[in-house]
């Protein structure tokens, strides 16, 4: 039984369709991610679910009830924005209390719940500060507390980490995930960052040009991309057309092939069939550009010991594990 289901959702802006038939189901307590490049419609879908953007046709069921005709105020949905959207005229405490104030929750009850919410994001000491006195990461945590305090049925996160720097981003994504698990809160997260999506989600909906291209857990998306777009967007797949693939594999191939760089192996033993063009060191991984039978490939090799590094121009033998090859549409 799904908790959120989107059925045949349609939306266009002045004649240009953003998406024409979106369908998806989300279970209670699930953390799903809408992943895709900018302009793929993921943010519009999120705003439609929030009720901030009216839909043209279709249904959005939340806990069995169609919420399309319900105003955003009454949907019971919390949302965190990329820009934080904290009210600059209010303190942290007042910001968090705003939703409760709208629900006319009594002062002492409200006070307690605000304190709890701030405790959750570890910002109790900042209650009296104004947003402009906080760092970006702190602002986003306040925004999170503000959207949680009203106990929403569904939490929407619209690229909440994109405006933050790398270290804070990593920390905050763990914190968000922990809080989400603790509260068992159904959450939809929007991002264009594949790493973020893979690390955080129970399930990922990969979107492109207004369609959900593929859905599944991180492992499915990573190991079995459904099409060329998915292969190109997730991981650093070597994407070969049928003709090139036939040349590389020395057998006839009828479709496009995606090969993950870390499934390829290089060795100096055996009959060399390729040559190293260049390399770059990515910390624990060495990334080589190799040419084999006129085909250029990216090969990732674990960086175990200093002696592992092959010099450019070195002739090498390439090994391919045919079980990891993906045929893509």
């Amino acid at each position: 039984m799904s908790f959120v289901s989107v059925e045949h959702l349609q939306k266009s802006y002045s004649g240009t369709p953003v998406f024409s038939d979106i369908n998806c189901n989300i279970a209670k307590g699930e953390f799903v991610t809408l992943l895709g490049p900018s302009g793929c419609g993921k943010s519009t879908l999120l705003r439609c679910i929030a009720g901030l953007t009216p839909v043209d046709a279709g249904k959005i069921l939340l806990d069995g009830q169609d919420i399309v005709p319900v105003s955003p105020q009454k949907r019971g949905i919390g949302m965190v924005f990329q820009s934080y959207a904290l009210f600059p005229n209010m303190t942290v405490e007042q910001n968090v209390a705003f939703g409760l104030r709208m629900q006319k929750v009594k002062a002492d009850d409200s006070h307690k719940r605000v304190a709890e919410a701030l405790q959750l994001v570890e910002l109790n000491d900042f209650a009296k500060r104004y947003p402009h006195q906080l760092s970006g990461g702190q602002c986003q945590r306040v925004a999170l507390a503000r959207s949680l305090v009203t106990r929403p049925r569904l939490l929407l996160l619209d690229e909440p980490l994109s405006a933050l720097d790398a270290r804070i981003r990593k920390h905050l994504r763990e914190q968000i995930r922990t809080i989400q698990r603790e509260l068992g809160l159904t959450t939809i997260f929007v991002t264009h960052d594949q790493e973020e999506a893979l690390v955080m989600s129970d399930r990922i909906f990969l979107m492109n040009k207004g369609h959900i291209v593929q859905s599944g857990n991180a492992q499915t998306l990573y190991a079995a991309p459904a099409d060329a777009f998915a292969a190109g967007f997730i991981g650093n797949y070597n994407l070969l057309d049928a003709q090139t693939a036939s040349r590389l594999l020395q057998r006839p191939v009828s479709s496009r092939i995606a090969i993950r760089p870390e499934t390829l192996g290089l060795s100096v033993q055996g009959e060399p069939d390729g040559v190293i063009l260049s390399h770059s060191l990515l910390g624990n991984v060495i990334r080589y550009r190799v040419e084999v039978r006129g085909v250029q490939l990216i090969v990732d090799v674990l960086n175990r010991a200093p002696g592992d590094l092959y010099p450019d121009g070195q002739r090498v033998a390439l090994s391919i594990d045919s079980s990891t090859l993906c045929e893509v549409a």
Partner: protein
Amino acid sequence: MSRAESTSASLYHRSVVWLLFLILLLPLLGTFIYSIASSWSATVLPSGFTFKWYDQLWSDPRFLKAFGQSLLVCVAALVLSVVLILPLLFVVHYHFPKLDALMNILILLPFAVPPVVSSVGLLQLYGSGPLQMVGTPWILIGCYFTVALPFMYRAITNNLQAINLRDLMDAAQLLGASTWQAAFLVVLPNLRKGLMVALLLSFSFLFGEFVFANILVGTRYETLQVFLNNMRNSSGHFTSALVISYFLFVLVLTWVATFLNKDKSQ
């Protein structure tokens, strides 16, 4: 750059700035000295000093009346523009962002059409007939509304853009606020300071408006500027005291505005 060069450059810049200051100060200083001189004619310096001109000015009922009427017209025009422009801006930026382009053309009109041109039409249209307003403060209030419009619109737009209106409104609505609650509890408080600054500065230039006041209303509802012009044949010391009093009043207003503005940026 050598040390000697940089000191001479800095000396040059300092002198230019001081010279600029002096040029701007000179007419004011001259008027001020004239306003406290007991008599000053056909000599470089006055013969003695006195405050009697200020005494005379501030006990002149016609002056006090003109001052009050100026205040009233300007305040009324600004109240009107706030009441009309705020909802306008809100609607334009939140509901119809495309209208902003049209508004940007409309607010050029008060620039491209000088008051003297508008006056020609206004005198003929509202001199008689159903909308007879010439000679009353009403026509001034309406005209001052158009004079303040471009400045107010720009100033508030800048403020709105700085606060990310759409996200704030969306966030407030998801937290359960109605459009009205969101506008009054979230947007308006964040515009307050910017609005104050815009109002003070608008007030200071409306207070000095002469063209509309003189052509459309004249002595029938005398404002400060018209009074000043009508006093041209009285003692120059008296008019100087008037000019200085006017300028000090505007100075205080602009000073408060600058102060508020600085406070805001911190």
